[in-house]
């Protein structure tokens, strides 16, 4: 189901499309012209050539604006096509759900038998390492596509978004209920996630069950204010075991809160609040461990409900950043996220959102398809990393890497696109 509302994805800037490339060249040319002006205007040759270059630069700026208009038209057509695809996938998921009981009855024994064979063979392989069977399986595994490359395929990314958006349609179909319409609070990705958490608790599993968190101040250092997107994104804490997950900067004008991404990918809660349990509870719109830790840290830093706050986050940190802004507990003016699954968070219109996503990053897709809504203050910045070259082998999620988002922030800073002007966005 696609939830309509003020979700992320209202407007999109493609920093690698024609408009983005031209704006970057205009920015470069205008800065060069300004830098060399005094030196070149002293000679007649210099004056003539500088003026002609300046005139060409102005024409190029107008052309970049025309290309931006072209991108806008393209985006509108793409939005129509995407709406049709969303409705089709939603109906498909509901019908698959309806067929599921019959499929289980018809093929259940075959599926159970197949799984038993697979598990038996896997156990036999572990018991006999180096056997001919083990060598055959090794050769087979080498022929399989690299999992990181597979997950970075844009088709997989799109399919994941549709599967996540259609999860509630699937459940409704399986339960014999009508197809969800998008109205009401009992349907949506959050309801499905809440169902999974409740189901795990009912069967006595520790999976996805939150526990209490504590916050400790580990370091205080002087800091200069961030000046651009690269500064903001590069200050997000790295998702490393044992490292601090939250960074808070205090200025006269307010605070900047930086939140890192998921550290522990295990299903059962450990001592790490930035874990998979927090991801699941955050998607279920319940108080996740990472959300609770963030609020505690903000209180410890002395942030009050009247202070101006900018939230910045990567992955799970981006989701929590958006949720803090949506909660209304703090006066959050801006949210900047990279690779965050926040498509279902309904942010108030007065909060400026810049959601940066790579086309090959599957993590934002886990929150479903971005809801198209006309909110001028919410902006999605999209960049494709692997259009001309394949994703690197051996990396789990290369397009989700914070380092690559720092590169994209650098591209944004030099893009020259007026929508990405940090001065304009405040």
């Amino acid at each position: 189901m696609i939830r309509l509302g003020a979700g992320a994805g209202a407007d999109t800037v493609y920093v690698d499309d024609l408009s983005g490339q031209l704006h970057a060249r205009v920015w470069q040319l205008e800065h060069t012209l300004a830098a060399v002006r005094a030196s070149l205007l002293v000679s007649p040759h210099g004056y003539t050539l500088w003026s002609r270059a300046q005139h060409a630069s102005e024409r190029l700026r107008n052309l970049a604006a025309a290309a931006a208009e072209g991108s806008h038209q393209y985006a509108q057509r793409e939005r129509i096509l995407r709406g049709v695809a969303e409705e089709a996938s939603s109906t498909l998921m509901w019908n698959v759900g309806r067929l599921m009981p019959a499929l289980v009855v018809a093929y259940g024994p075959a599926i159970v038998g197949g799984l038993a064979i697979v598990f038996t063979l896997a156990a036999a392989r572990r018991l006999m390492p180096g056997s001919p069977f083990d060598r055959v399986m090794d050769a087979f595994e080498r022929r399989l596509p690299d999992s990181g490359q597979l997950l970075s395929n844009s088709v997989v990314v799109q399919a994941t978004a549709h599967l996540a958006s259609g999860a509630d349609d699937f459940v409704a179909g399986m339960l014999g209920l009508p197809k969800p319409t998008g109205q009401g609070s009992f349907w949506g990705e959050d309801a499905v996630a809440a169902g999974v958490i409740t189901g795990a608790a009912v069967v006595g599993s520790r999976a996805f069950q939150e526990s209490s968190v504590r916050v400790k101040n580990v370091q205080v250092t002087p800091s200069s204010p961030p000046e651009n997107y690269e500064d903001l994104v590069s200050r997000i804490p790295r998702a490393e075991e044992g490292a601090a997950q939250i960074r808070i900067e205090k200025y006269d004008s307010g605070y900047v809160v930086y939140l890192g991404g998921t550290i522990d990918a295990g299903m059962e809660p450990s001592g790490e609040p930035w874990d998979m349990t927090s991801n699941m509870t955050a998607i279920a719109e319940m108080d996740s461990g990472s959300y609770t830790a963030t609020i505690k840290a903000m209180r410890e830093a002395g942030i009050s409900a009247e202070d101006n706050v900018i939230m910045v986050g990567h992955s799970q940190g981006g989701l929590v950043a958006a949720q803090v802004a949506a909660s209304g507990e703090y006066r959050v003016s801006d949210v900047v996220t990279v690779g965050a699954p926040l498509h279902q968070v309904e942010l108030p219109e007065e909060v400026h959102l810049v959601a940066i996503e790579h086309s090959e990053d599957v993590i934002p897709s886990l929150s479903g398809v971005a809801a198209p809504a006309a909110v001028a203050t919410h902006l999605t910045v999209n960049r494709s990393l692997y259009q001309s070259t394949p994703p690197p082998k051996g990396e789990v999620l290369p397009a989700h890497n914070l380092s690559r988002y720092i590169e994209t922030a650098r591209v944004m800073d030099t893009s020259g696109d007026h929508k990405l002007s940090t001065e304009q966005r405040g």
Partner: protein
Amino acid sequence: MTEFSYLTGAPTQTVGHWLALAGALNSASLTLRQAVPDSLWFGPSRQSFDSSAAEIAAELTRVHEEIVFLLNSGAVS
């Protein structure tokens, strides 16, 4: 692409500025010639874009070449 292989040692500040401007003009011209508009953008605005892009790329190239000529002639030091 223009190579300035005859330059040995560090260029003077003015030559450096001319080189920077030539480089920026060349980059803009190359981007205009190589970039491909999206296939879903069509109609009169696309036609207007294509013709303007060709004109501007030609002008950028002309200014770039004149700067290179100026540098090669030794009129700038």
